[in-house]
């Protein structure tokens, strides 16, 4: 019976399936690459790096190919592949991508080769690259999984390579930070594991068979009001730690500060997104009514996070720590948008996940470059860099302005969509959250002033300008920043149908009603709206 069910599920979603199991390849290629890299001889380090690069670039290329083949009118899951995996527990290898996960996958695909090319681990390169590739496989898996169990194991396995990356290649307090990261996140996941199992078991009572399949449970199973709330909470704790939402954020500054540059980029770029993505995919989609119920609390925490993160960032003395706290603030926006549950705010959140990945990734890259040159990240020890390295400063400025949310750059589009969408369902929270834009300017500009302005002192007067390699690497980031800021439509068009479907799903399963516009279109009635051409 079970197998027929799975088949029918496959048939329903496999409209867009292609012969090549692209999604499985996205996970397995880096995984096998990691094994390959580990097995390569230590004597020819250049082969090791080359192999890792080929593997990650290949993965990136596959993700871009997937992006090209993605049908922007289809709101459901595409490229679905489903195979029975653990029969006894009703678990299948079920992968799929939709507008919500699409760009996260692409971002992952792009970010990893950049990190491999751009950041030098300084020692034990082989192991470093092995972990990086393993991490890539885990992250890909988290974003592609459509099975609760599958998601959880990818969500959790990511900790291991990240742990080693922080602990092995980080800075002086790396072991403390790595352990804190691992335990804190694992603590959150502990609740989610129980939640996932409970979800499947309770759904079993409803459906009559055991399954961990996300789509099946979300679409077919119903939970009691209180049950759903508890289940939602168990997921929410894990995601809240991962995002992180105030007050569960304190692992982040430590992890970011102590992680090697590559680790920080990936951590900020994609790892944190697993939390926000989780809220969308497993919070709203699985437990719409409970998510609506929890909305006020989460919105409040998100808003506090925005303000609090910004204030804390202002007072940091370590540049990397400052960027880390800025992440707390930025991710607060994403959570705000997620739980405001309007077409705009959700689209903005998804968008902002990507934008934050690009901007903050680039910011960490730049801070890493500063560290490479000066061997310090303490703001007070840096001064007047703009005078000696104007191009470097300019690159930093663009990335920083993107982070500040200046229109025309990517950060603005997401932030604006989040705020304007949230305003309709969460007015006062949004008004307060919007003050975050002031604080963002404050802490970043202040930091910029202290680091780049003024007369360079002796130690900073020999600060090296960007090299060609660094410059071209940054150009990729800056290109993305500017392009997305000016022409976000291609992204929005792909994100929106899935988001609207999600909003409809929430409306259908709760008493929540998304705002409808006289002048515009209700997301509930117009799923695949095309731009105003």
């Amino acid at each position: 019976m079970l197998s027929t069910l799975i088949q029918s599920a496959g048939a329903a979603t496999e409209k867009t399936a292609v012969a090549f199991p692209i999604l499985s390849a996205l996970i397995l290629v880096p995984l096998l690459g990691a094994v390959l890299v580990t097995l390569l001889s230590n004597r020819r380090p250049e082969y090791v790096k080359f192999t890792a690069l080929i593997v990650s670039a290949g993965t990136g290329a596959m993700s871009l190919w997937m992006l090209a083949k993605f049908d922007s009118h289809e709101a459901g899951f595409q490229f679905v592949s489903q195979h029975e995996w653990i029969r006894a527990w009703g678990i299948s290898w079920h992968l799929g991508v939709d507008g919500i996960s699409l760009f996260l996958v692409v971002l992952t695909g792009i970010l990893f080769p950049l990190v491999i090319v751009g950041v030098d681990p300084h020692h034990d390169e082989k192991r470093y690259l092995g972990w990086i590739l393993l991490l890539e496989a885990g992250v890909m898996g988290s974003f592609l999984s459509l099975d609760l169990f599958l998601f959880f194991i990818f969500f959790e396995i990511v900790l291991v390579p990240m742990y080693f990356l922080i602990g092995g290649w980080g800075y002086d307090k790396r072991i403390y930070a790595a352990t804190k990261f691992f335990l804190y996140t694992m603590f959150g996941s502990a609740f989610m594991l129980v939640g996932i199992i409970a979800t499947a078991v309770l759904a079993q009572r409803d459906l009559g068979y055991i399954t961990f399949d996300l789509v099946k449970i979300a679409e077919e199973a119903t939970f009691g009001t209180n049950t759903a709330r508890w289940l939602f909470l168990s997921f929410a704790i894990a995601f809240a730690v991962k995002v992180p939402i105030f007050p569960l954020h304190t692992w982040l500054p430590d992890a970011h500060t102590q992680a090697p540059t590559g680790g920080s980029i990936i951590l900020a770029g994609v790892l944190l997104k697993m939390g926000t993505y989780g809220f969308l995919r497993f919070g709203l989609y699985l437990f719409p009514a409970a998510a609506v119920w929890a909305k006020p609390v989460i919105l409040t925490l998100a808003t506090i996070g925005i303000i609090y993160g910004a204030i804390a960032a202002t007072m940091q003395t370590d540049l990397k720590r400052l960027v880390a706290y800025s992440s707390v603030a930025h991710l607060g926006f994403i959570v705000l948008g997620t739980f405001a549950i309007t077409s705009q705010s959700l689209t903005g959140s998804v968008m902002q996940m990507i934008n934050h990945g690009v901007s903050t990734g680039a910011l960490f890259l730049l801070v890493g470059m500063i560290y490479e040159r000066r061997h310090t990240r303490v703001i007070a020890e840096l001064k007047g860099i703009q005078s000696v390295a104007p191009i470097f400063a300019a690159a930093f400025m663009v990335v920083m302005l993107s982070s500040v949310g200046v229109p025309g750059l990517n950060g603005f589009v997401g932030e604006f969509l989040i705020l304007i969408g949230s305003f309709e369902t969460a007015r006062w929270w949004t008004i307060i959250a919007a003050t975050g834009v002031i604080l963002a300017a404050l802490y970043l500009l202040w930091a910029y002033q202290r680091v780049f302005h003024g007369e360079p002192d002796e130690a900073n007067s020999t600060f090296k300008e960007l090299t060609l390699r660094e410059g071209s690497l940054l150009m990729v980031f800056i290109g993305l920043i500017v392009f997305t800021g000016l022409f976000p439509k291609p992204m929005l068009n792909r994100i929106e149908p899935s988001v609207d479907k999600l909003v409809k799903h929430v409306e259908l399963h709760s008493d929540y009603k998304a705002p409808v516009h006289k002048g515009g279109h209700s997301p509930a009635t117009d799923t695949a709206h095309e731009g105003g051409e």
Partner: protein
Amino acid sequence: MVLAATMTAPEIAWGALTPLLILLGGTCLLLLLGTLVPRWPRVATPTLTIVTALAAGTAACVQWNNLYYRKGYSIVADAISIDRFSVLITIIITVAVALGALLASAHHDDANGDPLENYALLLTSAIGAVVMGSANDLIVLFLGLEILSLSLYLMAASDRRREESQESGLKYFILGGFASAFLLYGVALVYGATASTNINGIAEALTERIAVGGSDAMLLVGIGLMLVGLGFKVSAAPFQIWTPDVYEGAPTSVTSYMASAAKVAAFAALLRIFIVGLESRVDDWRPVIWVLAVLSIFVGSTMAVVQTNVKRMLAYSSISHAGFILVGVEAAAHMEGNGLAASATYLAIYTMMVMGSFAILIAVAGKNDTATTLDAFKGLAKRRPALALAFSTLLFAQAGVPFTSGFVAKFGVIKAAVEVDSYGISIAAMVGAVIGAFLYLRIVVSMWMEEPETQEPLEIPTVVSVVIGISVAFTLVIGFFPSILLDAIELVRFAPL
């Protein structure tokens, strides 16, 4: 003479006893040949032990297969049950014996040779363990437990060069005797309340009693005493207190076996007595299991935090593993869902993990168990990267990281618990697991992120590598393809009454 005529000797199903008989025969053969054959080659002892264990295991596998065609049954006047559960336990124990023998052969000291008796004890202990796993009578169970325990006391004390070994043996012996007395007293009181020592008999008597009525106090206190005795054997908190000392003192190969086979057997006995025999009083004893489970997880995890000896750390981790298995027992105590299968799965996986972990300890600490401190593991990744990777894999498995068997095991028991709505214990267990993870991380940190204290090359005996390889392979294969194990263990059942 009249009396003699009325006596009916029970039928003995020799076929069903094959694994036991093989083990016993192997023991005798070993003792005889080892004593009688002149110039008995040293390598022959472990070989014979392993062959015996594997033969017994094979026989058990054949039994397992036969059970496709018939339900479980009990033999020799209901003294022994042959069912999927007992056969599975037999298989696990024989595997543990085989691996234990491999480790023991690498662990001997050159000066004193490789005493035959160690291996004979390994086999006799296996007999005791198998009997415990299949005993359907409390007296048989008690005897099995004593056979196992006496063998283990001796094995623990068998390294005569190290005083710690003897201290460990003596501690284990005194406390084990103390606990046995509790267990036996419990058997006595249960006997008083039910007039039977047979598990099926007890179950029937208790079912009748529910109709009849009357005070349960003696029965329940008896159950409590048995729980104390068995809790001691499975090292559940607060009866775990002997575990770290004994595990640390015993020769590492023995520790590995103690942590695996002995625990498996004790859990098997616990499950059978309580689930089959005391089912009707489940509401009385299940809360205690609950408390023991949570306490074990937290005590094991917490106390490991400040340890500096890896062997001791692993001992504490075995306590928290016991807690997790008790979570499965608690789930099984709801008499529905998959608690039994989950516990059995955990036991199987745990056995392999713990064997591998201690094998690595042997590899690092050397033959003399001299270097089991955390310092000895510093920078292991620089000295032997593969070994460090293997140990990390096993440690992460113990921590319950996905794609390892340990995760499958934890997932199984938590799932079983959730299926019967035991959310509290599930969450407590998972939070405990987080504390426990700190312990594994500490070892991992030492191996990967610190500089080695010595650059001496590390010689790893081949047999140890084999054990590590098997264990790691099992850990990963089950981690990626749990169905291999789950589909089989799903069938685990007790023989019907």
